[in-house]
């Protein structure tokens, strides 16, 4: 009998065939044995510019194009490798110090092995993505070498060898091969042996290093290697501390502060059968010891109280929690606890004698519990929980500053390595313990750090220093900090993106001949009196309007939107970049564009006096604003004028102006008021958020004043027509693509969100807040007025806004039609169409509308539900981040504008805690906390009545602070001693008006 097993003996190419076997567990719980056959090749190039042999054999693509070789012919040298060197890191090196590889100071000409890349992907997806980003950047010269597909570098796993050992061996084999290959290549080219660059394996694995030495492979530990570089000290800080720490800890039996996490399978089982719950961990901005998790099984969020229960979870992590027994349920805290103040003088270096919960923390929490227990009958305790495991860490790079008190004075000058605390800008992130040699230098700077690990035996997470952004309070550093903190992509557009721009650049014009393909199916609207109305200084003009009377007494109204989809074709590099950025981010002094400048501010922008491509929505409507007919078309327009809101307002108000353009604006204004009324009747909400504008000195762009935004009629004119266009487009694309239309929805807020506010209004002002429908809410908000206090209504609206859900983009196939509703606008269906220059969603809507009117076929990318869902998910996040970044930027500038000034202003109490209260100052749009201990030198006794939201103090100072109450505060800025951070500080002057 001949064996049926694949016999390789007779096959001359047998050595090229191998296979690998592994077990795959699918999501549905299936477990499969997978066998993959590998066909090993010999034409995978080494990609070194020194090598000519590979150049000949390297495979080319269908067009005969050979990807250029990456590795430099003359790589940089170090003290040890004077002849120059290529680096081959193993997985550990990348895991511990990817930040190092990203620096521009060193680490060029790096070979990333396929084995390492795959291992890294299994270990950490974010790091993998960053590495992929690195391999794409041309100047760093990172080359991915597919060693497991090349015959000479493929290694077969031996009997009894672990996968890790096999992979390490594969790395060593590849290093060796590269070394020999380069020597040969240089020899072949007639070069001298001394010229051959060294190939160095970087590893943090001692065993691997030892074996490398035995095999005669050039290898180096990260530390040793970095030590040999020029700016070693800076770079050394960027190596993750995980490893050394572990070694130290192993030596002495470490004390464990936290409970061990459950195993993955245990958590999975628990979540599935409902005994455990999974959700995203959110830390209260007022109390760093209190987190909450929204899980489907409970109406109210689960509360996680105290360090032990939080069990090393960090803001944003996906965690699994276990609900505590009912006796331990508590009401959410009414006390402000800030980490900074609690553990001020902790020593970062001290390892021994610390406990998880400091004495102070314990006392603060105990007070809490007492209070809750006394009131459990009427106070509604919420279920509490403890974290038993983390499914996914959401750690990113954090911006913060070094806690100066944790830096020992003597060490400031010396280069000794020491441990310092880093206080992240985001209050919800715990202090990070960082080991650094540059303590002296980075004090007083904005710095970027990452968290490496948080072990059971460490009270604080351990991280490492990435880079310094600049001095605290300098504009550059603070702006960059903001952008990093909100994950805004602010790097300049890569070359691949710029290559997608029209070759003509700024000289691009609408083709003069109407026979040009660009004119195909485009309507010529150049004869219309079109104008745009935007904020002052607006450069990216998305929209323009026109109106004209028709012979039958109706009006024709047109909204013309920049035709961005003409320039940004689906699935090219520019489209990909725009979909990642998702939105343009506006900061006070800076704009981070979604699309390159050329498009945003020139070619797409509907600038006046110039012909531009547009996407037009044109309606015929009666004077009562009833729509008779609507149509959509691609067009060419020529805007007559670009007004600012103020200019347009002046023009409308000036009776002497009777030209066509002005009358058109008046018509639009008249119609817009009718639209608005209709919307209001349907139950649209008018909500409020504190909006201020920072005025800058034109030269230095230093803030000089803060103004609250004024509202003009012309603003709501534009707004109404944009809403109209958005709603009509939404209906149209939904009709054409019921499964894949890009829409925007705003869910009705759950009643519980409003409970507290309604309660407060009821008890404090005897006002009823009804929220059965948006109409009811809108009406009852209108009744929330205090005749003596005009601002009260706005205050209520601001607070109501915070109870709302946030609107989100979605793909129509993922929701049922009733869920499409936009609650705030009281519209059945809605999308974003009118700002394609600054929002990606609009661009998608443009493409879909173009397909709906048969202008062009729908591209596959905007037809697939899965892809659209991913796009929606991303832009929802980006959108939120952009808003927050914008707000934070204003906040920063408000602080700067107030620098060195002391102002007394009126404010309102928005929130009352047992040991402090929050005051909102409408004039500056700032909101800040006043603690009891800030009231007087000796902290007065506080008596908090949670039923009436009243805080009465006695002792050193006697005041009574009520919710919604008016107070006068002194606003000043203080430089915090410990942190060197400038903060707006409010002091209570008196209660009542000025």
């Amino acid at each position, binding site marked *: 009998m001949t*064996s049926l*097993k694949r016999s390789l003996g007779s096959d001359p190419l047998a050595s090229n065939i191998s296979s690998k076997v*592994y077990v795959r567990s699918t999501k549905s719980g299936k*477990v499969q*044995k997978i066998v993959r056959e590998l066909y090993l090749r010999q034409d995978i190039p080494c990609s070194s510019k020194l090598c000519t042999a590979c150049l000949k054999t390297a495979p080319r693509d269908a067009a005969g194009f050979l990807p250029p070789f990456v590795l430099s012919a003359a790589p940089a040298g170090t003290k040890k490798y004077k002849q120059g060197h290529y680096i081959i890191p193993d997985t550990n090196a990348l895991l511990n110090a990817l930040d190092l590889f990203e620096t521009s100071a060193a680490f060029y000409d790096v070979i990333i092995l396929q084995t390492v890349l795959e291992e890294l992907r299994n270990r950490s997806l974010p790091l993998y993505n960053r590495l992929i980003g690195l391999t794409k950047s041309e100047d760093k010269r990172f080359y991915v070498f597919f060693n497991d597909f090349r015959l000479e570098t493929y290694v077969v796993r031996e009997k009894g060898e672990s996968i890790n050992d096999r992979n390490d061996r594969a790395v060593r084999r590849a290093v060796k091969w590269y070394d020999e290959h380069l020597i040969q290549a240089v020899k072949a080219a007639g070069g001298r042996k001394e010229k051959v660059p060294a190939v160095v394996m970087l590893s943090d694995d001692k065993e691997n290093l030892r074996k490398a030495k035995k095999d005669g492979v050039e290898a180096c530990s990260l530390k040793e290697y970095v030590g040999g570089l020029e700016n070693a000290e800076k770079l050394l800080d960027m190596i993750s501390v995980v490893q050394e720490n572990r070694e130290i800890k192993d030596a002495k039996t470490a004390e464990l502060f936290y409970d061990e996490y459950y195993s993955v399978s245990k958590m*999975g089982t628990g979540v599935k059968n409902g005994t455990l719950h999974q959700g995203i961990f959110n830390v209260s901005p007022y109390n760093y010891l209190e987190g909450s998790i929204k899980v489907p099984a409970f109406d109210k969020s689960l509360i996680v109280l105290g360090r032990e229960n939080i069990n090393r979870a960090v803001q944003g992590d996906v965690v699994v929690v276990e609900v505590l027994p009912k006796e331990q349920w508590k009401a959410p805290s009414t006390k402000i606890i800030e980490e900074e103040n609690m553990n001020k003088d902790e020593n970062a270096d001290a390892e021994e004698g610390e406990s998880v919960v400091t004495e102070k923390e314990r006392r603060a929490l105990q007070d809490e519990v007492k209070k809750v227990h006394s009131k459990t009958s009427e106070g509604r305790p919420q279920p509490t929980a403890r974290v038993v495991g983390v499914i996914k860490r959401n750690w990113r790079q954090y911006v913060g500053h070094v806690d100066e008190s944790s830096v020992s004075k003597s060490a400031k000058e010396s280069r000794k390595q020491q441990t310092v605390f880093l206080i992240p800008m985001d209050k919800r992130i715990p202090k990070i313990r960082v080991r650094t040699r540059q303590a002296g230098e980075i004090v007083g700077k904005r710095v970027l750090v990452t968290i490496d690990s948080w072990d059971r035996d460490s009270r604080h997470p351990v991280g490492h220093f990435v880079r310094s952004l600049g001095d605290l309070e300098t504009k550059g550093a603070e702006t960059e900090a903001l952008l990093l903190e909100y994950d805004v992509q602010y790097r300049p557009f890569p070359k691949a993106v710029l290559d997608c721009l029209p070759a003509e650049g700024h000289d691009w014009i609408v083709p003069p001949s109407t026979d040009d393909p660009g004119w195909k199916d485009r309507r010529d609207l150049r004869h219309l009196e079109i104008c745009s109305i935007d904020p002052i200084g607006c450069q990216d003009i998305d929209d323009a309007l026109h109106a004209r009377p028709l012979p039958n007494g109706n009006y024709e109204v047109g909204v013309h939107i920049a035709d961005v989809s003409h320039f940004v074709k689906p699935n090219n590099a520019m489209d990909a970049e725009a979909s990642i950025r998702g939105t343009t981010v506006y900061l006070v002094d800076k704009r981070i564009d979604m699309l390159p400048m050329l498009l945003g501010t020139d070619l797409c922008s509907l600038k006046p006096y110039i012909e531009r491509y547009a996407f037009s929505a044109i309606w015929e409507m009666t004077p009562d604003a009833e729509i008779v007919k609507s149509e959509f078309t691609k067009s060419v327009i020529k805007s007559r004028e670009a007004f600012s809101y103020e200019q347009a307002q002046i023009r409308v108000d000036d009776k002497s102006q009777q030209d066509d353009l002005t009358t058109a604006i008046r018509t639009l204004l008249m119609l817009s008021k009718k639209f608005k009324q209709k919307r209001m009747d349907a139950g649209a909400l008018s909500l409020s958020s504190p909006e201020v504008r920072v005025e800058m000195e034109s030269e230095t762009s230093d803030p000089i004043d803060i103004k609250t935004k004024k509202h003009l009629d012309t603003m709501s004119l534009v707004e109404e027509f944009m809403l109209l266009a958005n709603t009509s487009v939404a209906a149209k694309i939904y009709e054409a693509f019921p499964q894949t239309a890009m829409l925007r929805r705003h869910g009705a807020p759950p009643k519980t969100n409003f409970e507290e506010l309604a309660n407060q209004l009821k008890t404090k002002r005897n006002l009823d807040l009804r929220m059965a429908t948006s109409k009811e809410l809108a009406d009852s908000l209108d009744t929330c007025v205090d005749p003596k206090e005009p601002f009260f209504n706005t205050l209520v609206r601001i607070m109501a806004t915070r109870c709302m859900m946030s609107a989100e983009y979605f793909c129509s196939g993922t929701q049922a039609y009733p869920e499409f509703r936009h609650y705030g606008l009281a519209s059945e269906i809605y999308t974003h169409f009118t700002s394609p220059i600054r929002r990606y969603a609009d661009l998608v809507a443009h493409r879909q509308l173009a397909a709906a009117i048969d202008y062009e076929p729908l591209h596959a990318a905007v037809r697939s539900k899965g892809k659209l869902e991913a796009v929606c998910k991303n832009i929802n996040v980006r959108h939120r981040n952009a808003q927050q970044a914008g707000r934070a930027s204003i906040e920063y500038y408000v602080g700067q504008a107030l620098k060195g000034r002391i102002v007394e202003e009126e404010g309102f109490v928005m929130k009352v805690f047992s040991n402090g209260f929050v005051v909102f100052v409408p004039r500056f749009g700032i909101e800040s906390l006043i603690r009891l201990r800030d009231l007087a030198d000796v902290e007065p006794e506080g008596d908090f009545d949670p039923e009436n939201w009243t805080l009465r103090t006695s002792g050193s100072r006697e005041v009574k602070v009520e919710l919604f109450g008016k107070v006068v505060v002194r606003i000043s800025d203080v430089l915090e001693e410990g942190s060197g951070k400038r903060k707006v500080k409010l002091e209570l002057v008196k209660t009542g008006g000025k």
Partner: protein
Amino acid sequence: MAPSALQQILLSPAELSYLHTSLSYTPPIRPDGRTSTQFRPLIAECDILPGTNGSARICFADGTEAIVGIKAEVEKSRPTFREDEDEGKKGRNEWVEISVEIPGFRDDDSMPVFLGAMLSEALLADGSFVERLWINRRFHWKIYLDILLLSQPLSYPLPLLSLTTHLALLSTRLPALKSEQDEDPLFNDDWDAAVYLFPRESDIARPPITLLVMAVGSNIIFDPSKEELAVAESVLAVSVAERPTDDESRSLKLLAVRTIDPPSRLTQPGVANEVNTATGGTAVGSVGERVLKREIKGEKGVWQPPRGGAKRVLVREMIRRVLEPGGVADEVLEGLEGVELG
């Protein structure tokens, strides 16, 4: 009685009679010269199908050949409501699915169905096998045994299929479990870490085997060839398994015995000279007389298909010969142990 369903062998009554006679001698003379307990040589190999959890192939010298592939899947167990089943492992017969494929037969023909039933009967007989498929109280392995006869069923293929299945089970590996207790199972993704369903170095009884035994007169013959089966008076399928013992010696236990309808019953009888007109005999008038004559007179050299079942004494003797220490089953298991896994 399981049907023989063998293809009819085209032998003349004279040939059948000759075979029968030689097998009736003491010791019997077999057509291929074997002794009564001697097995035909066979060739076996394991792990021939890389995509399966376990596989084996066996070729018999007469050209019959079978392949068995085994796939395992994780499956949720049906909840039990009986309290007493709570503690300890307990398997269910439905966790094993056997399908037998024989060329020329539909999968619902009686032959493959009976073969499948006999194989699973042996496998499930004492419940120790399904117990091995228990992962935790909520999950178990479901085993799919795909048994494929590659050649025509020349002799009764039961022993071939049984031995191949035995080998395939021996080579079967299951991914190593990482999770604990009643959690959703989580497995090591390293195939090299997978564990054998029947670990070699343990006292776990190996899978059962089923052997075919036939008798002619009082002679008991093992591993009958198709010609021998054609004259068998009774055929028995005996399933045996090892019983775990403390020492090295092997102790066997009987799992199942099935009688199989011998194909010889369907052969054409020979005609005695006495009633054959061609040889000067006289034709018998009525049908009844003819039958009487044929049944009563056992004339030498005239083939008479066997009638009726085996005697108890004979059946007992056949089983004893299978089970006795150093007996046939012992020898076969010994031989199979020598097959290299992987």
